[in-house]
């Protein structure tokens, strides 16, 4: 009677990939809800062990959820309130530093282009350095009027939805298990064990993904900080952390992070372009470490995806839903894959369906027993 373990066929895989693309498209439309939902999930996984400790200490589930979320919210608010005067006092110097770094980076690019024009005729004919200087000057004139106001409006529109995150995290902590029980109760007895397995796998996939992401960020931060410290770039730890967090957005994030490092290196060593090149080499090296080593032991292992499928789906995600698609595609694919494989396993199992039909007949006979007498 030993039944073979179910393996998804091409139809199930097509459905999985199609559903992932459709969900990405829909999520892009409700990004204002998806982002706080993801932040709330991260907060939930961070706070859940603490809540469990309180329950073990004798507290009820509801009280422990209230205490843990309230504590975390108060702590975050307290830190922000305490940090506000410090941020205000440093804002002017940060603005100066920002301007200095941008200036240093632009100088580095202009010098590199000038060097290329001196050494290569095609670059000299293209007048790259002259074109770049003109475009930057135009951008500088338009920036405040066009982009700054737009960016401020976008930030203002996003702020209320981001405030949803702590609210959602509280309800995940308080009612997450109720929701799980609610879902499992709706499932017929015949499919119960498979569905429990499904819920467990979905939860485990999400948990491992987010935990893997946090581990990957820590590893990236350490590697970048050590490398930058060895090169001699200022504030290596903060720079490493920012670059590692930017890398959450596949491809685009890594390029942005690399640009950031190059800006700082070019400003710290204005007359030495070799330092900027060393910073680029460091970013590429950490990226390679990520792709071939770190990702395998953190995120890759959690999702159990084929490397080819991973790369193809990242491109598909970018094409369907832009930057949001790049970020969401892998965790979403992981969850949809588990759902698809389990539903496929249930639908294609004639024995389970027969047991369900039999149970329905038994229930029908039980409720109609007195009607025939």
């Amino acid at each position, binding site marked *: *009677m*030993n*039944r073979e*373990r179910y393996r998804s066929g091409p139809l199930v895989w097509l459905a999985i990939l199609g559903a992932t693309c459709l969900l990405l498209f829909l999520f892009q439309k409700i990004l204002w809800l998806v982002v706080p939902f993801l932040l709330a999930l991260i907060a939930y996984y961070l706070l859940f*062990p603490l809540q*469990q400790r309180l*329950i*073990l*200490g*004798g507290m009820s*589930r509801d009280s422990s959820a209230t205490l843990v979320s309230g504590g975390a919210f108060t702590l975050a608010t307290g830190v922000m309130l305490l940090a506000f005067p410090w941020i205000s006092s440093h804002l002017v110097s940060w603005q100066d530093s920002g301007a200095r770094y941008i200036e240093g980076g632009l100088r580095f690019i202009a010098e590199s282009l000038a060097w290329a024009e001196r050494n290569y005729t095609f670059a000299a004919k293209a007048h790259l350095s002259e074109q770049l200087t003109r475009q930057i000057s135009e951008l500088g004139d338009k920036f405040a009027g066009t982009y700054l106001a737009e960016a401020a409006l976008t930030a203002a529109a996003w702020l209320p939805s981001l405030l949803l995150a702590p609210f959602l995290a509280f309800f995940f902590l308080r*009612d997450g*298990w*109720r*929701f799980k*029980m*609610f879902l*499992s*109760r709706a499932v017929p*007895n*015949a499919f*119960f*064990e*498979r569905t*429990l*397995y499904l819920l*467990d*796998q979905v939860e*485990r996939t999400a948990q491992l993904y987010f935990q893997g992401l946090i581990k990957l960020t820590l590893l990236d931060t350490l590697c970048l900080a050590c490398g930058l410290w060895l090169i001699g770039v200022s504030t290596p730890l903060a720079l490493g952390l920012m670059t590692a967090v930017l890398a959450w957005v596949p491809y685009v994030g890594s390029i942005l992070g690399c640009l950031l490092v190059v800006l700082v290196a070019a400003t710290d060593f204005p007359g030495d372009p070799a330092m900027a090149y060393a910073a680029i080499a460091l970013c590429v090296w950490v990226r390679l470490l990520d792709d071939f080593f770190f990702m395998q032991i953190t995120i890759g292992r959690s999702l159990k995806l084929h490397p080819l499928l991973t790369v193809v789906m990242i491109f598909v995600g970018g094409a369907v839903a832009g930057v949001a698609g790049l970020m969401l595609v892998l965790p979403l694919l992981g969850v949809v894959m588990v759902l698809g494989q389990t539903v496929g396993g249930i639908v294609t199992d004639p*024995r389970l369906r027969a*047991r369900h039909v*039999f*149970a329905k007949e*038994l*229930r029908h006979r*039980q409720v109609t027993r007195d009607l025939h007498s």
Partner: protein
Amino acid sequence: MLSIFGNSKPAQGIDEHEKLSLFVDLNSREMKIVDGFMHERNYLKNEVIFDEGEEGQAIYFIRTGKVLICHQGQTAQAIALLERGNFFGELALLDDAPRAAQARAAEDCTLAVFFRGDFFVLMHSHALIASKIALQLARHLGVRLRGAVRKQQELV
């Protein structure tokens, strides 16, 4: 607001008889943690709970009613008839090996179900609770193994 989830209380306290078997070492606070993982299911007489050869995912505790353990299609030759307070399918807590026999409701029954995935979660989050359960499970399997050996010796 939570009324949409219906009666969402965790499966109500595992009774003393069950505690004697697998959760005997757990105190009331630890039992509250385990209760949060318990699912309650109702089965009608003759309904199949799990099949022989099926991948095991959970252990079942009989809260009310009786459960028949038999080989598939051989309901007349019962391996065991379990009553309130007994549990079955315990090997599923260890791995996802195929079920060794079929379980059917011998009469209308209510079962509490403890899922292997939740047991693994317990091992990470509450290692002490999980180790107490694992110890009891090992003792239970030891008793069964000794019984099987004794039976075999009697036959020889």
